[in-house]
């Protein structure tokens, strides 16, 4: 298997703001790759550079070996992008939109594949409806369909499930999983971390334009394996120094990461000794959200303390 997408030291500034601060990533053919990060981390900017919607200040990007600037036609033919913004052309119906999009990619008589996409995205009944008359979630599905008209080997989905109902989300993932099984490389950004956890084989986490974590989903989960204890303390809660250093603040609760259940007892003892009164306690298995928060806080300078 070759390299589907190679991103090499890409930097991008918007005036004084550094949106991408030297991002390097290599995504193999056939991967289901997650690109995660908080708002403003640079995910969309990176995707725009890959799609040729934005020009990087420095660094290079290739799609299946084709440079996105010097060999842009080949690179774009191999790439299907679902943009994050909900955009549509109000002049056309769903089917017209998809036929036109096929034509842009040099494909004529694409109706069989268009019908298949429409069926898989549950848009069959709306095929001849004008884009203006679709609900937000339906417009989002058309965006997904538009990205797939030319059967791109590399599919990039920038938050494809924002505003899409549960049933369709399931359907969409089934469809994308099938495309992935058939050999399409998939790159996904999402703020639904359960989705990323269950779909992505490998994940990169971005923060302020830098890659702060890059590993297989399994390894990331293992790195933070164990339990998370969330405690709400009765005020005035002043944690002793050595505990405060380990805690992170989430939704007003102090969260401690533990290697296993047997670490709970010493923690509680320490808290009792410090005179803290526990109002509420929750114990959860580590999931991607904990990993995400852990990575983001250790990568950032301004971690919030209890």
């Amino acid at each position, binding site marked *: 298997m070759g390299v589907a997408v190679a991103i090499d030291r890409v930097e991008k500034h918007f005036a004084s703001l550094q949106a991408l601060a030297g991002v390097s990533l290599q995504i193999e053919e056939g991967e289901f790759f997650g690109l995660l990060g908080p708002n403003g981390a640079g995910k969309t900017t990176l995707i725009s550079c890959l799609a*040729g919607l934005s020009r990087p200040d420095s660094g290079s990007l290739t799609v299946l070996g084709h440079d996105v600037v010097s060999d842009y036609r080949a690179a*774009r033919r191999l790439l299907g992008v679902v*943009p994050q913004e909900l*955009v549509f*052309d109000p*002049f056309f119906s769903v089917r017209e939109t998809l036929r*036109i*999009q096929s034509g*842009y990619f*040099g494909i004529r008589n694409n109706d069989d594949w268009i019908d298949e996409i429409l069926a898989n995205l549950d848009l069959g009944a709306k095929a001849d409806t004008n884009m203006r008359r679709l609900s937000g979630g339906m417009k989002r599905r058309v965006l997904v369909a538009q990205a797939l008209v030319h059967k791109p080997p590399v599919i990039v989905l920038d938050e494809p499930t924002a505003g899409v109902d549960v049933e369709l989300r399931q359907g969409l993932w089934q469809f994308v999983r099938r495309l992935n099984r058939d050999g399409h490389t998939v790159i996904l950004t999402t703020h639904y971390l359960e989705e990323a956890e269950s779909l992505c084989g490998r994940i990169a986490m971005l923060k302020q334009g830098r890659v702060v974590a890059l590993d297989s989903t399994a390894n990331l989960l293992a790195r933070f394996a164990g339990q998370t204890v969330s405690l709400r303390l009765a005020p005035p809660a002043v944690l002793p120094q050595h505990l405060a250093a380990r805690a992170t603040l989430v939704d007003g609760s102090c969260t401690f990461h533990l290697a296993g259940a047997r670490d709970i007892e010493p923690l509680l003892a320490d808290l009792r000794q410090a005179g803290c009164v526990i109002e509420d306690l929750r114990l959860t298995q580590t999931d991607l959200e904990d990993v995400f928060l852990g990575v983001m806080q250790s990568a950032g300078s301004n971690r919030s303390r209890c």
Partner: protein
Amino acid sequence: MTGFRTLLYKEVLRFWKVSFQTIAAPVLTALLYLMIFSHVLEAHVQVHGIAYTAFLIPGLVMMSALQNAFANSSSSLIQSKVTGSVVFVLLPPISYGEFFLAYVVAAMLRGLMVGAGVLLVTVWFAVPAVKAPLWILAFVVLGGAIMGALGMIAGIWADKFDQLAGFQNFLIMPLTMLSGVFYSIHSLPDFWQQVSHFNPVFYMIDGFRFGFFGVSDVAPEVSLTVVGTSFALVSAATLLLLRSGYKLRS
């Protein structure tokens, strides 16, 4: 080629679906100009020995064609930029040249349709002669292409609709209105005659009118040279802009 053809088809469909505003409305405007000006001037003015109404018709045809060619590419681009749907034409593997040609040809076609419409409704008032149809075609095609390309530049440059309106009101309107549509520049004071010679639209109108009457303010070969050179310059500028990604690929 399919990419270019599809983009051209899409651009034509875009104005065709709203042809009431994009074709019928400008034809009506031109008709109103004709009725007013010919009513006022027909009895008093002859140009190159031609009755005023007959003289006016080709000018109105060309002016409408030019203004609408400009309106087509500029409004299509600004609309898709403002709504964000411009990504649909930026993501596919369409080359700069194809992109340029599709917008320019669509703009020219709208100009031709509006021009033909104006001719059709004004021909009831006076039938202009057709002395040299090839000149007519050459000037309307080149003129439409120049305006289509200028419209692309304006549409790419403008971030908001009012900026585009400014471009239209302060550049395109004066250039087209003061180009000898309503008069022969020989009737102007010397100074304004000289100024008119720096207006490329003057040569488009003058050459176009030569195709009808076989007479013009300057020789049609001169006009064609000026118009052809303008086309080459504006096209080169537009292609450079597209290649640089200016405002389209930030």
